[in-house]
C-alpha cells in the first residue's frame, strides 16, 4: 500500500489483552505483523501462527563440531608426538573423553547463542519500530502490535480501525526513517 509508512502500531495494557489481540490479528489473515512485549508472553507465538523454533539445529551443529574438533585435536597431537603414559593407548575414545565432552558443550553453547542471533536477525541496531516515540514502553509495561504496510491485507484506515476494535489505543502510523528526515 502506502510506501511511506512502515506499519501501524497499537498499544495494549495487559498480557491477556495482547494475547487475544494477537490471536485475532492472525485470524483476520494478516501475516506480516509483530507483537512487542516486555517479557515472553506464554504461548503467544502459537496464536500468532509461528512454528516451533529451529534453534536446535544450530546447537546440534555446534555440539557435533565440538565433539569432532576435540577428537581431531587429541588424535592428531598424539600421533604427531606419541606420549606413552600409564601404559595407555596412543589414541582411544576413553582417556581423552573429558576433552570431547567439554568442547561439545562449549561449541554447542556458542552455536545456541549464535543461532539465536542469526534466527532473530540480530544485532540490528536500526529498526523502523524504534521510530515510534513511545516504543520504549514496550520493554517496561506496555504491549504493542505492529501490522506492517507490506502485508497484502494492509489498508491504512481499515487496519487502524481493526486494531482499535481489538482494544488497542494510541493507534499510530510509523513512518519509514527516510521520511522523518
Amino acid at each position: 500500500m502506502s510506501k511511506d509508512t512502515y506499519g501501524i502500531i497499537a498499544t495494549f495494557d495487559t498480557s491477556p489483552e495482547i494475547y487475544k489481540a494477537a490471536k485475532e490479528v492472525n485470524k483476520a489473515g494478516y501475516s506480516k505483523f509483530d507483537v512487542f512485549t516486555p517479557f515472553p508472553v506464554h504461548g503467544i507465538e502459537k496464536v500468532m501462527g509461528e512454528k516451533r523454533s529451529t534453534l536446535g539445529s544450530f546447537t546440534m551443529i555446534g555440539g557435533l563440531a565440538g565433539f569432532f574438533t576435540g577428537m581431531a585435536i587429541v588424535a592428531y597431537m598424539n600421533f604427531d608426538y606419541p606420549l606413552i603414559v600409564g601404559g595407555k593407548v596412543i589414541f582411544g575414545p576413553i582417556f581423552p573423553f573429558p576433552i570431547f565432552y567439554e568442547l561439545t558443550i562449549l561449541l554447542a553453547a556458542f552455536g545456541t547463542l549464535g543461532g539465536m542471533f542469526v534466527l532473530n536477525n540480530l544485532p540490528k541496531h536500526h529498526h523502523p519500530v524504534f521510530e515510534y516515540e513511545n516504543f520504549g514502553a514496550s520493554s517496561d509495561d506496555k504491549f504493542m502490535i505492529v501490522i506492517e504496510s507490506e502485508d497484502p491485507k494492509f489498508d491504512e484506515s481499515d487496519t487502524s480501525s481493526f486494531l482499535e476494535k481489538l482494544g488497542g489505543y494510541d493507534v499510530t502510523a510509523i513512518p519509514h526513517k527516510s521520511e522523518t528526515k
Partner: protein
Amino acid sequence: MAHKAEDLNLPAETQILIAEAKPVDMPRRELVENNRDYNWITEKICGIVEDKTPTWWWVCISIAGLVATYTLAGLVYLVSTGVGVWGLNNPVNWGWAIVNFVFWIGIGHAGTLISAILCLLKQRWRTSINRTAEAMTIFAVVCAGIFPLFHVGRVWFAWWLFPLPNANGIWPNFRSPLEWDVFAVSTYFTVSALFWYMGMIPDLGLLRDRAKSLWRKYFYGALAMGWRNSARHWKNYEMAYLTLAGLSTPLVLSVHTIVSFDFAASILPGWHTTIFPPYFVAGAIFSGFGMVLTLMLPLRSVFKLHDLITQYHIDCMCKITLATGSMVGYAYAMEFFIAWYGANSFEAFAFINRAGGQYWWAYWIMISCNVITPQLFWFKWVRENTTLVWVMSLFVNVGMWFERFVITVTSLANDFLPSSWGYYSPTIVDIYTYIGTFGLFSFLFLLFLRFLPLIAIAEIKALALPQADPHNEDHPLNQKSSK
C-alpha cells in the same frame, strides 16, 4: 492458582464431604509480595543502576580495590622471586593454591545450578536470584583461575597448557586430569558468561530504552544488540535459554567432577576414592549457596528488595544448603566407613590421621561448619532470622575452605613413609594472595551492581507475577477498570 471448593460446581455429596473434611486452604507462596506491577519492578531494578552512585558504593569499591592489590603484590613478588615464596615444600607440594582454586571454583557452582538445573525443574523462585548468582559464578571462576595459573611456576609458559604449537614440538598430555581441568574450567567460564550475557540482553534493551545520557545510550545500546522485544524473537530466545540451561546442566556436574579427578586419579590414600566426584559436586553446590546467601541477604536490605527476595526465597536457599550439606556430611561418614570396610591400612590411617592427627583442628572446623551448621536449617525460626542465616552462611564458606584444606594437605603431609612426613604452613605471601582475591571478587561484584541489572527483570515479570499469565483475566491488575 488454588481454587476454592465452592467455585468448582461440584456435586452435592462431594460438597458435603468437603465441608466435613475441611481441607486446609494452602495457596502457593507469592514470589513477589505486595501485588507489585510491571512498572514497579522496572523502576526498582533500573533505579539501582540509574540513580546517583551511593557513597557506600565508593567506600566499598575503594576498600575492595585496595584489598585486590594484595593479590597483585603477592603475584608480582612470586613471579619476580620464585615459587619458593609460597609455603610449598616436600612432601606438601599442593598447598593453599590448590585449596583456594577448588574453593573458588566450588562457589561458582551455585550460580550454574540456579541458572541451569533449577530452570529445567521450573523452579520459578530462581528468577529473583539467578542474575546475581550467575555474576557470582563468573567472578568466582576469575579468582579461581589465578591460582593454578601461577602454580605452574613459570606463568609465562602457562599457554603450554593449551593445545598450541610450541618450539618444543610437544603437545599437552591429554591423559592427565590436570589437562582435563584446563578444558573443564575454561569451558565453564565461557559458557557461564554466555548464559549470563544472553539472559541479560532484554534487560539491557530496557536500560537502553530508558537511557538519558549519551554514554548510557551507547553502552547499553551496543550490549543490547538491537533487541526489540519482538514476540517472534522471544520464541527463539526462550528456546536458546532452555537449550543453554540444558547444556549447562552436565557442565555443573562435570566441572567439579573433573576437579575431583585431579585428586581421585592419583594413588594417594584419602584421595584415591570413587566417592570424590559426587562428593565434590555436592560440596560445591553447598559452598555456592553459602556464598549466594552471604551476598543476597545484604543486597536485599541495602537495596530494599524485600518484595522480590522474600522469606520464601530465603527458605528455598536454606533448604538447598541443608540438602547439600547433609550430602556432604554423608560423604564424610562414608569415607570413614569405606576406609574401614576396604581393609586398607594406609587408607584407614589417612582418615584417622585427618580427624586426630596434626591437622585435627582443621578437620573439626570443617565438621562443625559443614555438618552441624546446616542442620539448623531444619528449623523455621532459624530460616526466618535473617541475621542468623547470614552468619551461618559465613560458617559454610569457612567450612568449605577447610574441607579443601583437609583433603589437600592431610593426605600429602602424611603419606606412606613416615620418614618423608612433613608439616605444611602457608607463608605471608600465600595469605595475602588469598585475601586479595576476596578484594578482586568484591570489586568485580560491585561493578556489576552499579552497571548491570542485578535481577532478571523480564524473567521475573514473566514468571513471578500472576498477571503475566495471558489466561489470568481475573487478576485485578488485568481489569480495565483498575487503570
